[in-house]
């Protein structure tokens, strides 16, 4: 099963995604992997990562730092059933797009991330993917940022099409956007 969790900043999407991953893994005694995509540049980033780590501690996640090429995480995973939590698509997209020696095109980035996500999905018993809605602040940014918003939008659409369930977090409340095969 693949579940996509979208939401804005401070919407509670990380907490919810972690709970989901735990309940999916709990039923089947799988290994839980947390694929972290955030690159730390400053104190604020460090605090954010610390907050997320503290919340995850005790939940039994194996954390893997994978700021780019998320599919490569597979080579370090054990065989057996796994539940994979990816946090999050918008960071991953920013890294893939801007962190290299040149800015990559939105098409290139969307294609490679979707390919990676598909590799993960094939190997994981369950996958929970966290992403952001970046497209609702009504602002017009310079081209690189608009391309970035496009890329995240394209990836979100493709993942949502693949997902068995799509949930949008609003003020900590999960709002069901899509559920394959009747009620979940």
């Amino acid at each position, binding site marked *: 099963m693949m579940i996509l969790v979208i939401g*804005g*900043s401070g919407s509670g999407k990380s907490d919810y995604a972690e709970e989901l991953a735990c309940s999916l893994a709990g039923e089947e005694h799988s290994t839980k992997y947390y694929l972290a995509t955030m690159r730390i540049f400053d104190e604020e980033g460090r605090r954010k990562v610390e907050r997320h780590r503290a919340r995850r501690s005790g939940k039994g996640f194996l954390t893997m730092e994978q700021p780019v090429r998320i599919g490569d995480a597979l080579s370090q995973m054990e065989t057996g059933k796994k539940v994979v939590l990816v946090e999050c698509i918008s960071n991953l997209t920013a890294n893939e797009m801007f962190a290299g020696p040149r800015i990559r095109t939105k098409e290139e980035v969307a294609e490679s991330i979707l390919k990676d996500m598909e590799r993960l999905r094939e190997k994981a018993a369950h996958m929970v993917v966290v992403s952001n809605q970046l*497209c609702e*602040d*009504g*602002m017009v940014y310079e081209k690189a940022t608009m391309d970035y918003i496009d890329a995240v939008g394209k990836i979100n659409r493709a993942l949502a099409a693949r997902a068995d369930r799509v949930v949008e977090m*609003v*003020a*900590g409340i999960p709002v069901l956007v899509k559920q394959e095969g009747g009620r979940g």
Partner: protein
Amino acid sequence: MKLVIGGYGQGKLQYVLRKYQLEETAVWDGVLPEEKEIQTKGVVVNHFHQWVRQSLLQGKSPEDMARAFVERHGDCIIICDEIGNGIVPVEAFEREYRERTGRILIQLAKEAEEVERVICGIGQKIK
């Protein structure tokens, strides 16, 4: 307490006034009114996010103040813009404002007897 969330220009205030048959005089814009200021039946706080922003700018703790307000006015309606669905702002204060507004909304939503999201003037009950 009831919480109403939605994007800019979605008709949240109109929706609330019509649904609960309230007058404009019950509406407080971007402020949490003092007890003695309230002379109407029902209290509506509109543009709650702007109040959060002002409180942060003044170095106050909007979390504590919002909690206290809601405790005093259990029948109030709080209307807030969704401000988290955009590009991460360049300025640290803007990021803090976004994040803390989101966290306060989670807290309010937990305590609320009802949470609605308004899209295109249509209310969606999500709690």
